[in-house]
Structure formats: C-alpha cells, structure tokens
C-alpha cells in the first residue's frame, strides 16, 4: 500500500476564499493509500516547505500531493523540497486548485470550489499511485562547436566561441572564408570599406589557436543530438597541400588558362588555379578541376613545375573527416536571384544592365576596374545611372513576395558612391517604398537625396531596352502620375536576396525546419531567434532571411553565446519525460518512427547469441526525444509509452474522475 501525503494550500485567502481547504484535506484522508493530509496557509513559504519535509520523514511518505497553484508556478519548488527530504522528486505531483479553481469560480459558498478541488486532488492521487521514480537524464557535452558557413555571421560566431575558450571549426564550402561581405565595396550606414573591417576578422579567425578552418569543405552527414553530434565533413580536394603552400602565388601567375571569375560575377577572368580574391583566407590556391587541362587531359602541369615547395598533387582526392561536436551553428548565408528571370529589365541581353552586387565590384578598390565606375559594354564612365529597386522582391508573380530588406539601403549607398566617384553624374532610383528602418538609416537615405543628388522616383520600371548605345528606361513616377523615360548609360538592379541552392538538403541533414523560400526557421521569431527546433543547432545571419551586416553579426554573437552557455557545464540534465519501448510487444511496424517529429526513434538490431541479427525493434534515443508522446498515440500495439505520462497514469486519473 502506498503512503501518500496530501497538502492543501490556502494561499492566504487566494484559495481559501472559495475552497474549504480543510474539508478537502479531510476527504482525502479517507482514500486508500493516503496516510497524511492537512491544509496550510502558504505551502511555498519556508515554514510550509519545512512542514512538508518533516511530514515526509515522520510519516515515511512515498508520495506527495500538493494541491495549490499551477505546476508552472511551484512544481519545481516542491519537487526540490521532496528531494531534500529523501523522496524521488517525480513522486511529487501538483494539483492546480488555484488557477483552475479558486480564482475562476467565485462562489462564496465554497460549494463548487470545494467539490472541484476534491475531484482534482483525487484524480492526482490516483495518478500518483501509478508513478514510478524517475531520474533526471544526464548527457555529457562534447565541448567543441562547428560553424557551417564562413561569412561574416559565421566568422563572428566562431570568434566569440573561441574567445570563450572553446574549440570551433568553421566549415566553408568556398576556398576562402568571407562570404558575400568580401565582395562589398563600402558598407552602409557608416561607409567603412568592407575589406578593411572584414579582413582583420578573417585573419584573426585564421590565426586563433582555438579555430580550425575547413575551407573548400561541406557537411556530408550529421548524427547524434545536442551535446553529442557526430559530423562528417567532406574536405574537397584542392590539389594543393595546404600545410606546405606558402601562398607565393607563383602557380597562379604561371597557369596559362583563364575562366570567368565567379567571385567577380563574370566581370573578369581568373586562372584555373586560383584564390577567389587577393585577401583570401587561407591564402592557398585551389585547382578548378573541371577546367584544368592537366586533370582533364593530362596536359600542362605548369603549376606543379613552378611551385617551389612542390605542394601540387594532381592525384589528390576528397577526404571525409569525422568530428564530434556538442553544438552546431548554421550560417550559410544567401545568394541573389538570377536577374535573367525578369526579361523586361534586359539583364543578360543588355550589357549595361548589371546587378547591385556587380556594382559593388565596380565600386570596390580591389574590383575589376580598380574602383572606377565604368560600364561593362565599352568601359565608358556612365553619366547617368538608373537604379531599380525591388527587382524580384515583393513580386508575387515572378519573384518572391517578401522584401529583401537591405536593397533600399545599399541602393542609397550606391548613389552616394556613384556621386563621389563620378562628379556631375546623375543617378535615378525607382522605388516603391523606402525601407530604412535602422539606426541612422533614414538619415542615410535623406543624405543620398539631399546631398548626393540622387533623383528618387516612386514607381516601378516596365521595360529597359537599348537604343543607340543608350539604355532606355521606361518607368513611372506615381507621385506625379506620369510616365517617365530616362536615357541612361547604365542600369543597376537591386536583386532579390534568396536562400542558397541546396539550403533544403543541408536542413534535412540537420533536421531543422525551413520556410517555403528555404530560409531556415528560428524556434520562435521573437523569443528564440537563433535557436532551431533541434536542440543544439543554432542559426546566424542571412540563412534565416535577408538582413544586413549589423544584424548578421549580432546574430553570430547571439548564437555563440547560446553555445557557450550550453557548454558552461560538463553535462546537461534534462527532464526524464521520454518515450520507452516495450521490447516484448513491439512488432516493428515503425508507426512511431514516422510519427516522431524529432526523429528520436531508431531501428535497433536485436542479435541472438551467435551475433546474428534476428529482428529490428524501435528504440528511443533519450538524448533526442523531447517527450511529446506523439509516438505513444501512434503505436497500435501499445508498445511504447511516455515516462511521466504513461497510459497507466492517465487512465488512473480518468478513472478517478
């Protein structure tokens, strides 16, 4: 027979006003298994807790009911008190007779309140009788983090983690870290040169003793769970021995073949053996295998000949390395929508229609024109430039419905850069709304208009076409209600920001969610902005949606702080509310496996004595299971149950109803 103690709280007058607590306690005494019952003014007060502890000891209680406020309020308090009195904390259950009873039933006769409180307490008592002692789950934490994506968000996250004393690996798919920011010229709203503020961070990341860079690498496979991930990383063959390469650049210099530079968005060529840009980190070239005549046709090999340290190896192969880590930050960033999708703007057909990112390269001191604004068709300095905002953004029909958030700002920046570099040039901006909601952002746009003479026209452009070496822009100025035609020398499209190709495949490897545009979902857009639904995996930067550098950096730091707080203890404890499979009755139908929202259920091989697999059974991974119980309801043979909410417990409560 169980020995249960029942403690009914008066909460001053909060409960006692409409519930006869004494009567409730008295009634409970009559139930089988209840050996102690009383009511008390403030259960959560120190004397109240002491009374509880003493009663446990004096009456050798093996179960405790506190009928008081919501368990969301004091369940922890009372379970802790029980624990300190030597009782398993999960043998303590709360009945909610305040929020669910006294506060919502104002009957001063105490009839309804007392009846309901007694009912609820009885249900909890019956439930408690079926409780089993549970132990908190302890999970060891591997204190190493992986950051996927070495853009500014990823770099910031890695630096913060490393500064916190934790080892971190940056996995970057390109030959260099830096991401999109490496392409930018100057950055709003302060107009610092992008390279000037980014390069020091890149170098710091390279030199930091706690940071390992895996460039030219991608995630192959992710297993495990929070604190205990096992990640396979494919280190693509660079054909250059990273350890020995001195970065002298001799090989690049001598390579006889050139192809379009992706980094420069096709505006110039690069060698087949290359670094994406001069400040690349690490400063180790890679061979673009599909274009290398040695690798494809066994001709050439010049680079290997000129390389002093002899670090070129045409036979090098991809390597898979396996890393154990406790947390992962995803910071894979964005790409731009193909401009060709908008035939009316003529991108691809008309040479002098370029994208905003191409304009960044033109304006960049390290870009193809050395920072001079020259139009692609004939290299002339454009006397008039038309900027078209929302190209692909806010376009439900052919583009994406969302706003790309940064293009209003960078277009204003472009007009400034243009006016500083081309005196007497005229810029025009077609916009629908100016979205400059940030600190000093609106002022920035006003400056472009008032000081740098950008002519802002509220309207969209219908068509861009070529005539006599000019680019004709047919637009509207809806404020004056007129059509506008501009004979421009160059047109710049503020192209929509979209998610990376393959963002969905990576998300599937990580079991994190993404929206219909394949941007990753945060756990909660306001309150958990860098967490994902999968514990231990965090997000930072534009892989979540368009944002600017300040926001990307803030998120990198936020994600890093989450990782550091996770790593602040050697092991994590968590509530033991997890599912458990009955191996005798499980018939391997896998209904639970498909139902589980967290992929916490695995197929577990059962072997006979000879080590031969005889069957497969469902097995719950306690580290991953979040205790939702979906699997329990899914299992037709009742072979899986949820600790803390077992069928037995629930039925007992229902039966006491």
């Amino acid at each position: 027979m169980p020995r249960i103690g029942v403690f009914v709280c008066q909460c001053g007058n909060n409960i006692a006003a409409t519930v006869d607590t004494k009567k409730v306690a008295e009634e409970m005494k009559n139930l089988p298994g209840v050996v102690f019952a009383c009511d008390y003014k403030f259960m959560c007060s120190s004397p109240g807790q002491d009374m509880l502890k003493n009663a446990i000891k004096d009456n050798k209680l093996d179960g405790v009911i506190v009928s008081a406020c919501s368990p969301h309020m004091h369940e922890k308090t009372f379970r802790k008190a029980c624990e300190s009195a030597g009782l398993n904390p999960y043998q303590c259950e709360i009945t909610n007779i305040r929020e669910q009873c006294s506060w919502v039933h104002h009957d001063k006769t105490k009839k309804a309140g007392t009846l309901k409180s007694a009912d609820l307490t009885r249900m909890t008592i019956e439930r408690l009788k079926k409780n089993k002692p549970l132990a908190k789950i302890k999970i060891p934490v591997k204190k190493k983090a992986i950051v996927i994506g070495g853009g500014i968000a990823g770099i910031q996250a890695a630096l913060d983690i490393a500064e916190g004393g934790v080892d971190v690996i940056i996995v970057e798919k390109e030959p260099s870290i830096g991401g999109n920011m490496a392409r930018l010229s100057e950055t709003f709203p302060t107009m610092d040169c992008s390279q000037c503020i980014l390069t020091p961070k890149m170098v710091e990341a390279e030199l930091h003793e706690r940071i390992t860079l895996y460039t030219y690498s991608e995630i192959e496979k992710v297993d495990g769970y929070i604190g205990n991930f096992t990640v396979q990383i494919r280190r693509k063959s660079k054909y250059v021995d990273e350890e020995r390469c001195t970065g002298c650049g001799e090989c690049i210099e001598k390579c006889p073949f050139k192809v379009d530079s992706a980094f420069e968005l096709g505006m110039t060529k690069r060698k087949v053996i290359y670094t994406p840009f001069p400040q690349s980190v690490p400063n180790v070239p890679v061979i673009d295998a599909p274009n290398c005549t040695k690798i494809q046709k066994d001709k050439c090999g010049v680079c290997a000949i000129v390389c002093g340290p002899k670090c070129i190896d045409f036979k090098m192969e991809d390597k898979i390395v396996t890393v154990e880590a406790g947390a992962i930050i995803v910071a894979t960033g964005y790409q731009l929508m193909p401009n060709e999708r908008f035939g009316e703007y003529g991108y691809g057909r008309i040479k002098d229609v370029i994208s905003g990112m191409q304009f960044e390269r033109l304006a960049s001191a390290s870009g193809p024109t050395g920072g001079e604004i020259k139009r692609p068709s004939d290299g002339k300095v454009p006397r008039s430039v038309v900027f078209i905002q929302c190209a692909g953004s806010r376009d439900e029909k052919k583009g994406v419905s969302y706003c790309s958030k940064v293009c209003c700002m960078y277009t204003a920046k472009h007009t400034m850069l243009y006016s500083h570099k081309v005196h007497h040039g005229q810029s025009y901006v077609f916009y629908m709304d100016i979205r400059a909601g940030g600190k000093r952002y609106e002022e920035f746009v006003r400056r472009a208009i008032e000081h740098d003479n950008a002519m802002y026209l509220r309207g969209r452009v219908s068509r861009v076409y070529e005539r006599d070496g000019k680019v004709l822009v047919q637009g509207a100025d809806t404020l004056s209600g007129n059509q506008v035609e501009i004979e421009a020398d160059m047109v710049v499209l503020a192209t929509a920001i979209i998610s990376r190709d393959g963002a969905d495949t990576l998300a599937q490897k990580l079991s994190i969610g993404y929206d219909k545009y394949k941007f990753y979902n945060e756990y909660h857009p306001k309150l958990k902005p860098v967490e994902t639904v999968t514990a231990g995996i965090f997000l930072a930067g534009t892989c979540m949606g368009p944002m600017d550098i300040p926001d990307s950096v803030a998120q990198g730091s936020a994600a890093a702080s989450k990782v550091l707080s996770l790593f602040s203890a050697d092991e994590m404890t968590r509530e033991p509310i997890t599912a458990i499979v009955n191996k005798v009755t499980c018939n391997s139908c896998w209904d639970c496996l498909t139902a589980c929202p967290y992929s916490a259920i695995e197929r577990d091989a059962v072997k006979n004595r000879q080590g031969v697999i005889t069957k497969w059974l469902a097995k719950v991974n306690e580290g991953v299971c979040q205790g939702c119980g979906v699997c329990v309801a899914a299992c037709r043979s009742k072979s899986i149950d949820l600790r803390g909410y077992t069928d037995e417990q629930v039925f007992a409560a229902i039966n006491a109803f």
Partner: protein
Amino acid sequence: MTEHTEQTESCGFEPKIMAFVCNWCTYAGADLAGTSRMEYRPNVRIIKLPCTGRIDPLFIIKAFENGADGVLVSGCHPGDCHYTTGNYHARRRWIGFKNLMEFTGIDMRRLHFSWVSASEAIKWVDLINGITDEIKKIGPFMEYKGLKEKASL
C-alpha cells in the same frame, strides 16, 4: 450570489466535462484565465498532457465510460505546436477517430476540439461556458453510464 450558482439551482443537471489539454498552450491559457480572475462554469476537470499528439482515442472513450457528459480536447494552434508538428498528428488522427466515435454511439456534440493558446484566456472561458451550456441542453450522457460497473462484474 453569482450568476453561475443561480443557474445550477434552477437547472439541476450539472454535466461533468473532461478536458485533455496540452501543457504548453491550453494549460497555460487556462492558467491565465485564473491569474486574470475570470469566472467560468466549474464543470470541467483538466488532465494535462505534454501535447495533443499524446492523446489516445481510448482516453476519450474511457472518459465517457467514467461518467463524462462531454469531452474537450484542446492544444496549440496549428503551426504553434511546442513540438513543431505534434498537433498536426493529433488533427490527422481525429479524422479517422471521429468516425469511430460516431460508430460507438457518441453524440459528436459532446466531443469538442479546439485551439487555445497561452494568451487566449478569454477564448478558454468562452469555450468552457459554451460547452457546459450546450451539454446542459443535451442532457446527461446515459448510454455509457454503468458500463464500467458492468465491465468490472
């Protein structure tokens, strides 16, 4: 005397209603009704579960067997599930489940499904009042009464 007790006295029949609610949304919503000192009919008894996805159809049948005149199932709004998709599972299951209930002779007016979020205290109050009043009108659920006793014989 409150409006409620007046009604009880005049009406006589006090239905018993069992509510299966999820811990994260509806339970918290009901708590909020409490902290806001709202008033509602005292006929409901809550059983807390982690998620509506945990709810087994048998729970509901058992509730009716144990004398419930009405049953409410309530959880997070679609898309807001604490466990990402648990409530979708629950919803999908209901479709097949409703037929089963009807088959076993339960008047579907006695079974309610709803979404109440942690901030929807008013919705919770309206829901409980609404259901209580409706079931008062329908009258007690007799079909299963005594089933339990019979079964235990």
